Structure formats: C-alpha cells, structure tokens
C-alpha cells in the first residue's frame, strides 16, 4: 500500500477506530460493533473493512496482537488513539459551529 499518510478520516474509518477504543477485537467483531453503534446506518462491506484494517496496521494506528486460525485480533495503538481524539475534537468544533449558527438565526 501507499507510503502516503491518511488524510481526513472517512466516517467508516472513524467508526472502525472507535470499535477498538475500549477493547481488542477481530474484524468481524469490529463490523458488528459499527453496525450496532450506528443502528445499521453505517454498513461495511468486507472489502472496505479489511482494507481499512490493513491500512491502519500499516500506518501504526492498530497493532495485530493475536492470530488464532483465521481470526486476527487488533489493538488500538497510542497513535491510533491520538488520531481518534483529534477527529472527535474536530467534529465537536464543527457541531459547535453549527449550533452557534442555529442560535443566531
């Protein structure tokens, strides 16, 4: 994959990072987390899920911690956590801007 760093996270990437915030998971568990958290609004195809996991691992956002048969378990790294928090701060700022605009109008 590319050596180019990730730009802005997409919605799916953001939720994948969120899936690993509190516990180690495998890909299928991450997909279930995202579907449950978003009540089915964000759906992930297998290509997207495993491409994102591969890219995150390559970028040092996730680390593979266990392989049991076909099941690969990942953990969020400090770098991944920092990126997640950065994105949350950005989104909060966006929502605050939208709220302030609504109050004015």
């Amino acid at each position, binding site marked *: *994959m*590319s050596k180019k760093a990730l730009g*802005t*996270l*997409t*919605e*799916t*990437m*953001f939720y994948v990072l969120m899936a690993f915030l509190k516990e180690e998971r495998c*890909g*299928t568990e991450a*997909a279930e987390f995202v579907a449950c958290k978003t009540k089915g609004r*964000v*759906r*992930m*195809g*297998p*290509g*997207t*899920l*495993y*491409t*994102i996991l*591969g*890219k995150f691992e390559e970028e040092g956002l996730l680390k593979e911690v266990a392989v049991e048969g*076909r099941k690969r378990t990942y953990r969020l790294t400090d770098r991944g956590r920092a990126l997640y928090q950065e994105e949350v701060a950005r989104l909060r700022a*966006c929502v605050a801007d939208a709220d302030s605009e609504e109050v004015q109008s």
Partner: protein
Amino acid sequence: MSKDIVRKPVPVDFLDLDGMELWLEEMAAKGLHFQGSGVLFAHFLPGAPAQVRCHAEPTPDKRRDVIPGQAVDCGDLGWSYAGKIGWLAVFRTSDPSAPDFHTDPVAQSYTLERMTRTMTRSTWLLLAVMASLTAFLVWSSLDSSFGPVLRLVGYSSPYTGFVFLLDLVLTLHIVREVWGLCRLRRRLRAGMPISGPPAGGIPASSGRATPSYSVSSPWPKSAEPVPTFWA
C-alpha cells in the same frame, strides 16, 4: 468435474474493473458461474441462472493458488471468494441484503495503490524503450555511418515499420489504460464511488443488469460525489 467447465475468452479489459464485474454478473444470469481462470480463458461452471453481485478486487499477487486475505473472512459479511482472473480476485454474493463489497470509496482507493504504482512504473519503462527505439531509427536513417544497421533496417523495412507501428499502438493503449486507472483512483480518493447496483438487490431495469460494459474503458460510467460530511 473439469469437463463440465465452460471456458470463455474474456471480452473485457483486465483494468476495467466495473466492466469485468458486469460481464461476470451477466454470465451468472445466463447460468455460467465463474470458477477461476486459466492462461487464456475464464472458467465457468454451468448451473441455474442466478442474480449475483460480483466484485473484482485488485490483488498484489497474480498467482492463482494464492488466496487473498479478504477471502478468509468475507463469508461473515455475505460474500464468497470465487477465484482469480489476472490480477483481480473475484468475490460474489447472491444475498440481496449483503452490503456492497466496498462501502467506502476512499478505502477502496487504497486497493488500487499498489496496482497503479506497478503499472505506472511499467508504462514509464515502456515509454523509455519506445523513445529509444524511435530515436535509434531516426538517427540510423540520418547518419550514413550507420551503414550496416541502415541496410538491416532497410532490408526489412516493411516489417520494421509494422512492428514499430504495432508497438506504438500498444504503448498508447497501455498509457490510456493506466491513465484511466489513476483517474479512477483519484475519483475514489475524492469520495466518488464506482457506479454499481444499490445494496439490496439488482433491479432488472438497472444499468447493472444490462450488459453495458466497455471493452477498453477502465473509467467509471458515472459517479456522484458521496454526500457525506466526513470525506
């Protein structure tokens, strides 16, 4: 078992991902289900006609016995691995409720990175060889000290001209294809998905059910930006 296999030449360019998917879906609708490919032909197993969705995913390894990583787990999300055709791993689903294979165009663009890098390198090499060959032919025809070479070129001039022209056409074709692939990757990275049927089924009236693939164009037929706040 193997004598039941139907072999068909591939009418779609190997870099035309959308066209490849459309062709395989059309074959499944006719009752020919993709099983893999040989050196020259795609292999199909005859069966009942079925409405399936196919996805062609670029893989870093062309070897047919090397199964791509996604193949192991895609079953949990409703898709199965069917086989390889060139550099493309083919996945399919007959489950109308299964999500699309790729639901995030930006993530999908990462799958094209290695392929476009390799193809771009090869294209530059090809262009360099072509430029050297052209320069040599021009130089040899202008410089009389190239006597023996000139005689050789002159002796076989009709063949030399034909080979040179063929090489030029092939080079231009490959440049166009690679340019299209790079353009597709840029569009995906900008959040524009490759056109395809919506998850949840393939309406008979949809463009996807119609064999509208092009034989040479790797470009998406239409693409609307993803209406998202995030991308």
